[in-house]
């Protein structure tokens, strides 16, 4: 087998700073699928882009990155463009950002064909339509005239794949192509990529932070950490018997559905939160009515933990926002500790009372903390507002609480931008806990974090739950995360609750087709019994 992509001792960095990539070496052979896994900031994207001769402006680099014998570090512009047009293609993470929104899908697909391959417009269109059909899109002819905003995320990613395959490349580079997609959509895209790679005999380099995904697609894997390859080898070997500590941590941190570890659901104490017939509809300016949440009903006992699982648009976030009164229900009852929620936006005084009962932690700690306020003050402010503590007392309380979530006193005066994502989410948790709530709502609170950080935050949540006797409502798209934290589970689809009950029961014996689909959509390693190309 000939070597398709060969990277040797590739170092890249900006002058005067430590290198972002340090002597990276990896290879992809013809017809081979190779995964490059690592956490954010590990340099996966930089490595892959180098294969196309795309380097960040002002960077310095050395080593070799050769694709079919062409060294992209030294090749001229013309040779690079020929490489990009004919031999190597890349699929990007977010198709909605990656396809020009003001041009038609057809224009996106055919622009290189018409401009550089000398095809006429109709020939190019014909070829593009064929390619669209091949990647599983129906009504391909109509799609050609549509704009990206008229297509769903999954369809757009298929368009992106079609565009990458148009010139029958020998090397396909995939930069987290499913991260922006729902689990069930991801399963379809992964299957498609595997099929295409196998039938065309392409070499593929697949970047991901998700070990399960890497295992479901690739025979070999490279583990990248802070710009260095720490381990590589056959996927199965690396994942089942990792040699390096870092890889071991990564494998352990990767969430899997585990049913055994959960305690039995809390014996029905007095219900803390009771919801029945809860519905939320939105009226669009053009007269359309969107039912975001349809007739939801459940009850959450004091000290219990409830997971809400569903895809984007399933209404799970709407439910969370209704519970913390960020939204007002259109109809239905919501009772918290026996107090019914009024059907109108809350007054400021009511909100303050409610804030002592319920607190929420949002998905993205980069957005949910005020960048100007030092984190210690942010937490102390909550103590002053809700516990009526004095300035000094509040600071002491804040220091204690931050220490308990693992933020040392030396970070007390740091602003959020000086903290890592995991640290910020700890601060967000501390802010929520400072109000001493009974119910803590976590809205995708770990989705924006790396797997190792996610594992730490989940540990912390478990610990705090036991320490504070918290009741937890955990909203997420990830079944594995729920299986760790929550004893009760709600599965939502299109604004409706399709299934609810004890987590263990639902995961072992799902009663609804959608739940089954959701569980089956989780990526499975290639060496597992069920082949991916079903």
């Amino acid at each position, binding site marked *: 087998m000939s070597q398709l992509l060969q990277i040797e001792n590739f170092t890249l960095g900006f002058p005067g700073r430590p290198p972002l990539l340090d002597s990276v070496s990896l290879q992809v052979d013809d017809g081979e699928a190779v995964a490059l896994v690592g956490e954010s900031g590990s340099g996966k994207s930089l490595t892959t882009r180098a294969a196309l001769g795309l380097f960040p402006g002002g960077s310095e680099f050395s080593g070799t990155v050769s694709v079919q014998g062409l060294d992209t570090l030294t090749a001229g512009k013309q040779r690079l463009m020929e490489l990009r047009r004919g031999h190597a293609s890349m699929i990007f993470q977010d198709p909605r950002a990656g396809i020009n929104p003001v041009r038609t899908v057809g224009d996106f697909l055919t622009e290189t064909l018409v401009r550089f391959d000398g095809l006429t417009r109709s020939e190019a269109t014909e070829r593009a339509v064929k390619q669209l059909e091949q990647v599983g899109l129906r009504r391909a002819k109509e799609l050609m005239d549509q704009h990206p*905003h008229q297509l769903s995320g999954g369809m757009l990613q298929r368009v992106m794949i079609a565009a990458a395959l148009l010139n029958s490349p020998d090397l396909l580079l995939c930069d987290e192509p499913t991260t922006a997609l729902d689990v069930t959509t991801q399963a379809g895209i992964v299957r498609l990529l595997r099929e295409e790679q196998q039938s065309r005999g392409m070499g593929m380099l697949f970047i991901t932070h998700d070990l399960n995904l890497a295992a479901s697609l690739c025979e070999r894997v490279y583990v990248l950490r802070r710009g260095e390859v720490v381990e590589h080898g056959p996927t199965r070997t690396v994942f089942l018997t990792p040699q390096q500590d870092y890889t071991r941590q990564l494998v352990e941190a990767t969430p899997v559905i585990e049913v055994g570890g959960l305690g039995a659901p809390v014996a029905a104490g007095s219900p803390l939160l009771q919801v029945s017939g809860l519905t939320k509809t939105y009226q669009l300016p053009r007269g359309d009515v969107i039912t975001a949440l349809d007739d939801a009903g459940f009850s959450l006992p004091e000290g219990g933990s409830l997971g809400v699982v569903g895809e984007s648009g399933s209404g799970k976030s709407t439910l969370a926002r209704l519970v913390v009164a960020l939204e007002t229900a259109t109809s239905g009852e919501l009772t918290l500790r026996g107090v019914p929620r009024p059907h109108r936006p809350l007054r400021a005084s009511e909100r303050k009372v409610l804030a002592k009962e319920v607190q929420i932690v949002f998905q993205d700690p980069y957005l949910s903390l005020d960048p100007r306020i030092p984190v210690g003050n942010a937490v102390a402010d909550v103590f002053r507002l809700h516990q009526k503590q004095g300035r000094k007392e509040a600071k002491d309380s804040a220091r204690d609480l931050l220490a308990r979530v693992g933020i040392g006193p030396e970070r007390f005066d740091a602003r959020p931008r000086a903290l890592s994502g995991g640290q910020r989410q700890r601060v967000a948790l501390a802010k929520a806990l400072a109000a001493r709530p009974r119910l803590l709502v976590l809205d995708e609170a770990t989705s924006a974090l790396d797997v190792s950080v996610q594992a730490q935050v989940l540990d912390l949540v478990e610990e705090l739950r036991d320490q504070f006797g918290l009741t937890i409502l955990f909203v997420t798209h990830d079944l594995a995360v729920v299986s760790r934290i929550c004893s009760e589970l709600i599965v939502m689809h*299109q604004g409706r609750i399709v299934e609810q009950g004890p987590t263990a029961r639902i995961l072992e014996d799902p009663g609804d087709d959608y739940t089954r689909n959701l569980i089956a959509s989780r990526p499975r390693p290639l060496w597992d019994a069920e082949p991916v190309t079903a």
Partner: protein
Amino acid sequence: MTATEQVQATVMPGGPTHKRAKRPAVGPAVYIVKKLLALALTLFVASLAVFFSRFLVPGDPARFLLRGRSPKPEALEEITRQFGLDKPAWEQYLNWLGGILHGDWGRSLTYRQDVSDVLLGRLPTTLQLVALAAVFITILGLFAGIVASLNKGFGDRFILITLTAAGAVPPFVAAIALVALFSVGLGWFPSFGSGDGGLDRIWHLTLPALALGITYIAMVARVTRSSMNEQLLREHVEVATSRGLTRGSVVARHVLRNALGPILTVSGVLVAGLLVSSAIIERTFGLSGIGQLLVQSIDRLDFAVVQAIVMVVVAAFVVVNTVVDLVQPLIDPRIAAGTESR
């Protein structure tokens, strides 16, 4: 679940996640009609403001016409009646508006001619001046903006500083500087008059148009630069590059094309300033356009002319901006029928 089923599940755009009460999408025709109705309404409100503002100005136009001579009361009354100044305000307005709709803008007090004749004699000069300035603004503004955006570092900073300086220069200063350099110093362009038609006209109008446009060149260049800089960071530009497009194709098809929206919006708003500034330039270069006419007519309380000119300027502004609004959906299809955010 087979592959095709998977796809079907994802096929409906925005689909299975929400239940929607189906309704026909708002067509482009409705959009255009709405914009045109807004245009008509704006012009109507503007006409009210333009007409009645005259009553806020002190001074009796009929008396002014007699230039300080003390007239016999009958003569004054005669003139007042002749120009319809004795009727109630609303009736005067209705007559005026009705006249405009028939192409009759009333009579000028000073010129003793129909306003439309006075105006038509001068409008072409101003329009040509503004049009030529617009050409300079488009070409030089876009060019400077594109060059600045694509040449980070020295080129960008040099152009930016030049633009800031140019933007701070008032039109009359620019006019004097240009005349000193190009007509007095180098003798390339005439410093006065509007010339005879054709090329001679363009030759005569070059310096005035440059003087008029210089501030706006700076503004358009800045908007172009920042709008392009924003687009250059977008992922779809990187995707285009990764597919082997040439730098030129990427810039033209994916950067500049997407940056056009904001540039056009700003340009539309600039039109009003251009028409108003033309008064100063016309005076400096001795062109007989409507700008100069406006200044004279205000001096002489020639309300019919003032009203007509202000109406023309307002109409030009509103029409240009309506056209900009109508063109926007063609540039960015997400704006059409308000689907941008959803």
